[in-house]
């Protein structure tokens, strides 16, 4: 009777280890960013979601999806405006880096995928992507951008943006559950 339990525990251990391994690799490969690089990632992340919203506005006919896309454009534009004003005040010039380049490369692929879809299939793909994208951005802000930021005002702005990102995620999950099933 003991052997099956050992087998089960071993299997669970292997599964957990295999799940944790990519996370550890990812954490170790995360570069340390300067404030100029943090600013670049923050601006890129906001611009990417605005570009997804542009596609939604061009392709969707669902009023709730369209209203969500308008909100994304308006909110992320407001964040970019405040980030731009702050980096100007601080004399920081956003600097491209591995993280911002990876975000932009992934976004190009996602935009291609979204542009290939239409109708309800597009609506579902757009909202599903908004859920996963906001989860990824929230994680990046919490675990990479905020810890790596030296300037107190830039760090505060990133902390202030988090509730908006979480509200966007909650809104997208509402649509995912009730509108684009």
């Amino acid at each position, binding site marked *: 009777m003991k052997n099956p339990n050992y087998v089960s525990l071993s299997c669970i251990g292997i599964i957990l280890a295999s799940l944790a391994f990519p996370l550890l690799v990812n954490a170790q490969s995360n570069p340390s960013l300067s404030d100029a690089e943090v600013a670049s990632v923050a601006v890129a992340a906001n611009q990417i979601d605005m570009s997804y919203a542009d596609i939604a506005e061009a392709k969707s006919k669902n009023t709730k999806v369209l209203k969500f896309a308008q909100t994304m454009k308006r909110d992320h534009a407001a964040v970019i405006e405040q980030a731009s004003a702050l980096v100007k005040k601080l004399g920081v010039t956003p600097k491209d880096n591995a993280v911002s380049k990876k975000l932009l490369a992934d976004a190009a692929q996602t935009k291609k995928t979204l542009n290939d879809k239409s109708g309800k299939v597009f609506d579902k793909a757009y909202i599903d992507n908004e859920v996963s994208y906001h989860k990824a951005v929230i994680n990046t802000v919490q675990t990479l951008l905020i810890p790596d930021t030296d300037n107190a005002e830039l760090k505060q702005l990133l902390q202030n943006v988090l*509730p908006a990102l979480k509200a966007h995620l909650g809104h997208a999950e509402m649509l995912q559950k009730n509108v684009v099933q």
Partner: protein
Amino acid sequence: MKGFSYRWYGYIFLELIIFLALFNAPGTRKRGKDLSAPRVYTVEISGMKFNPAALVVHQGDKVMFVNHDLVVHDVTEAAKKSWTSSPLGVGKSWSLNVQQSAVYYCSIHPVMRGSITVK
């Protein structure tokens, strides 16, 4: 004795003036009225939340919503959309004259909700 009487009447007259001044002074009247006057409550919008999210008020009280957040919000009655503010830009405010209890939300960010209860 006659002089004393005039002085006595003078004191009474003075006391009358003081009494009338105390009980009819504008400030005194205002304080008396304020006990039953409508109150003004403030709900601050910040961090994608209404703060406080739950208010208990009397009918006729006012609730002023002030947007101190990073982005535009609105305040909309949830059940029948019977009242709504226009979109409130950053730093803008809007007041509601409360007539009945209501659950409200931000129609731009539907995860933001609050309530007003009339007691």
